[in-house]
Structures are given as structure tokens and as C-alpha cells.
């Protein structure tokens, strides 16, 4: 069951999930992907979600984005308003439509929402400028690097002006240098926009670097195992964060939480 409400006030929960369970019944035997997940993400918060492979992270995001109807539990995300999407999902890997130009890709959500052509063009160009791709507005995705394509995906999500940005390992396919650049860019965009972000990742470093708070999931069936607050001030600079002694302690703490689950997921 999905209920949707407007977040009560700034600082209240933008996402509230309670007792969420989901079972996939398509295969030979039913697979319990999520077993009683409860979590809250405050409005304006950058929250990372880490967990071992196959723990149901993507399932959770797909439920929040409305792609999957969960078996049981309640999910609260902001309501849909005119010309806006409550929660926009940035997909794993590269997910631009190859048959649309960069601008058409960024306009996509607005087009589906029924925003008139002139207005959506203007909004798309504004978001392209934010990610530094104005010069490539008429290019097709195959002419772009992977990092640039992922920027297009992010611009497409931001163009629908969502309250919540759901990100499913958006930088997993990038090389390390591009990943660092895009992380910086995402933090900048997030700070300028005040959006709530739920960011799924495999990478401990990425979680610590980006998030205010890291949620650790168990191996399948997925539950929230623990949460770890990340104390570094904003705006963050990678080099300073790396040098901070707290960084190593945080990383070790997260790995302690995650290690058993990763072993379970690997079948040991």
C-alpha cells in the first residue's frame, strides 16, 4: 500500500518507510527481497544506503519511485504536483535514451508530465547549463563520454524538480577520476537545490564522502541493520575529508557492519 502526503515541514521526513516487505514470486520459488524495512529520510538530507549485492537496494528504490508495488508496508513520499515529479530516479549505469538528443533526454520527464514544449525546452537548457553540457544539447548520447551521459541522466532527474532524488549506484560504471568529479558536481547541485537524496552505492568511500548519514542493509532478505552519522562539515572537500582521522574510523566502522552481510551474500 502506498500513501502519499506532502512533507509536514522543513526538516520533517521526506521519505518514510515502515514495515516494508517485498517478495518476488516470478521465478521457481518466491524470493523475499525486503523483510520489514523501516527508514526515514529528512527533507534536505543526503542519505546513503549501502549493502551487499542482491540485498534489495534497487528494489527499495524502485518501490519508492513507484515502479514496483510492494507486498506490504507503508511508503510515504511527497505528492505529485503540477509539472513536478515527487521522486525522480537516476538509474544504475548509463540510462540515457540513445534515440533522443541530450536536450530531448533532459526534457523527457517534463514531456511525460505534459509541460508545454516551450517551457520544457527552457527548463531543460537551464539544467544542461548546470551540468556544463550546454554545448552538447543537440548531440546524441553515443557522441558523449559515459561521465557526460550520466550528467545528462542527473539533469533529466533534476529537471522535473523532484522533492526527492533517488540514485541507484549512478557512478558505478565510471572510472575513479570521473567518479570523483561527478561526486563533487552532485554535492554542488544538491547544496544549491536543497533536495532530499537517497543514494544507493557499493562504495564505502562514496557513502562517507557524500552523505550526512549512511544506512547499512543486511544481506537478503534486506533489512536496515544500522545507521552511521557522517560528521564532516559542508561544503566538503575530498582532500580534507580523506586526511581527517575520523575518516578511517568511519570507514572501519562501516566495514565492520557490512562485512558479515557481504560474507552472507557471497554464500560463505
Amino acid at each position, binding site marked *: 500500500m502506498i500513501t502519499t502526503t506532502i512533507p509536514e515541514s522543513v526538516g520533517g521526513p521526506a521519505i518514510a518507510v515502515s514495515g516494508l516487505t517485498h517478495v518476488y514470486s516470478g521465478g521457481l520459488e518466491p524470493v523475499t527481497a525486503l523483510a520489514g524495512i523501516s527508514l526515514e529520510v529528512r527533507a534536505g538530507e543526503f542519505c546513503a544506503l549501502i549493502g551487499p549485492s542482491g540485498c534489495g537496494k534497487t528494489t527499495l528504490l*524502485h518501490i519508492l*519511485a*513507484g*515502479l514496483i508495488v510492494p507486498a506490504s508496508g507503508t511508503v510515504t513520499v511527497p505528492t*505529485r504536483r503540477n509539472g513536478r*515529479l515527487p521522486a*525522480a*530516479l537516476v*538509474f*544504475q*549505469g548509463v*540510462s540515457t*535514451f*540513445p*534515440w*533522443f*538528443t541530450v536536450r530531448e533526454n533532459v526534457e*523527457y*520527464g517534463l*514531456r*511525460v*508530465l505534459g509541460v508545454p514544449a516551450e517551457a520544457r525546452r527552457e527548463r531543460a537548457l537551464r539544467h544542461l547549463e548546470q551540468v556544463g553540457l550546454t554545448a552538447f544539447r543537440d548531440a*546524441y*548520447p*553515443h557522441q558523449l563520454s559515459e561521465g557526460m551521459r550520466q550528467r545528462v541522466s542527473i539533469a533529466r532527474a533534476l529537471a*522535473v524538480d523532484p522533492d526527492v532524488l533517488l540514485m541507484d549506484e549512478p557512478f558505478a560504471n565510471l572510472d575513479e577520476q570521473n567518479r570523483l568529479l561527478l561526486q563533487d558536481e552532485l554535492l554542488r547541485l544538491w547544496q544549491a537545490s536543497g533536495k532530499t537524496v537517497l543514494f544507493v552505492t557499493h562504495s564505502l568511500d562514496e557513502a562517507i564522502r557524500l552523505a550526512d548519514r549512511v544506512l547499512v542493509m543486511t544481506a537478503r532478505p534486506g533489512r536496515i541493520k544500522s545507521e552511521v552519522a557522517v560528521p564532516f562539515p559542508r561544503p566538503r572537500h575530498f582532500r580534507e575529508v580523506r586526511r581527517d582521522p575520523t575518516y578511517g574510523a568511519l570507514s572501519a566502522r562501516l566495514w565492520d557492519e557490512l562485512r558479515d552481510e557481504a560474507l552472507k551474500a557471497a554464500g560463505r
Partner: protein
Amino acid sequence: MTTRRADRWLTAASPVLLLVTWEILSRTGVLDPRYVPPPSAVLVTLAALVRSGELPYHLAVSVRRILAGFLLGAVPAVALGLAMGLNRGVRAALMPVVASIYPIPKIAVYPLIIFYLGIGEASKVSIVALSIFFLVLLNTMAGVIGLDRVYFNIARAYGAGARGVFSTVAWPGALPAIFTGLKLGMGFALIVIVGAELLGSDAGIGFMIWQSYQIFDVEKMFAGLLVTAVLGWGATMALDAIERRALPWQPWAQL
């Protein structure tokens, strides 16, 4: 870029080399010119056929049949292929029928078609339509099925309904495969129409070749074959050009 230029040069040079060799062999009598006339003689015959209006007439008849049959076959094939690609139920229901009719050589159905529709234009157009229908259908379906699921998910995550998913994902995503089907189909259409005209017809390139055989006009037979080859080549070029126009997003479209 040098390699590409070299490729282009080879592409142009190889048929010329073949024709020159043929000309020499035929003129020196290595090939008996009564059976294998030199290309120059075929060209002279061709020019005469053009002047007399005989060739343009037969060519126009064949081209008209191909175009009409192409439209008649391709339009429903694309529609049905999209439906089969998008809907598992439709696919399950129709796939056995399609899979069993597809491999029948369509020219073998021609006598039956003549029996139903007579020897006139309807039977020619129908055999062309029938011969390309399954090719286009199967390619269209494969194009939809082969699309990465993530594109459908993106569309749905942004709130697209069935129509939105169709017009922004399934249709543009399947177009490259549809063009592959159309290009394959064009070759088949040519094979089948010339075959059908040989078997039972009173006009068309195939009929012209058959008529030449009956009066042992070898040069005219070669002229007919040459026209058929050029027609096929031209049709492929035309479809390629349309495809590049329609699919500017394909990596090779900007070549």
C-alpha cells in the same frame, strides 16, 4: 580516414575490374560471345531497349508492383510485430503460426495465389507483400524484445502511460530493427517479383527476360539481369539514405 578512402576506392574499382575482364574474355573469344556477350554489347542492347520504350515500360510495371506490395506487406507487419514484441500474450498466440508459415518459399505459394486472384496485378502485389511480411514482422518483434528493460523502466518511473512508453521507447527503439527487416525484405521482394513475372505474367522485367529466352536473345536476357541488379542496388541505397535520415542517433549515421 585513409582506410575509409581506400575502402571506397576498392568498392568502386572491383565491379569495373570484373566488367573489364569479362569484356576482354568475350572479345578475345575465350568466352563464346554467342552465349556470353561482352558488356559493351549488352549496354548497346540496353540503350536500344530504353529508346524503344520497352525497358522503361517493363521496369515501371515491376517497380509499381514492388512498391505496392512493399506497402501492403510492411505496414501490417510492423504493426503486428510491435504488438507481438510488447505483449507476451499476443506473441504466444501468434508465434506458432508465424514460425510455421515463415519458412515456406513464397514463390511456391504463387500458383495458389494465381488460382485465387488471377494472373493480373493483384497476384503480383500479393506475392511481394507475402514475401516481405514475415521478415519485417520478425525483425520488428525482435527489435522490441531486444530493447534493454531499463528504457521501459525509465519511461514508467517518469510516469509514462502505455501510449507514452510506446511512442518514446518501443517505437524509436525498434526502428533500427524495422529498417533491417525492410532492407532484407527489399531483396526478397525483388527476387520474388522477378520470379513471379517469369512464371506467369505479361509485363515486367522478369517477363522481358523470359520473352528474350524464348527467342534466344541472349543480350536482352543479360540486359534484363543487369537492370534487376541495378534496381536492387538502387533500392538498397534509397533505404539506406532514408534510414540515415530517420535514425540520426545511430552511431554510423554521421559517416
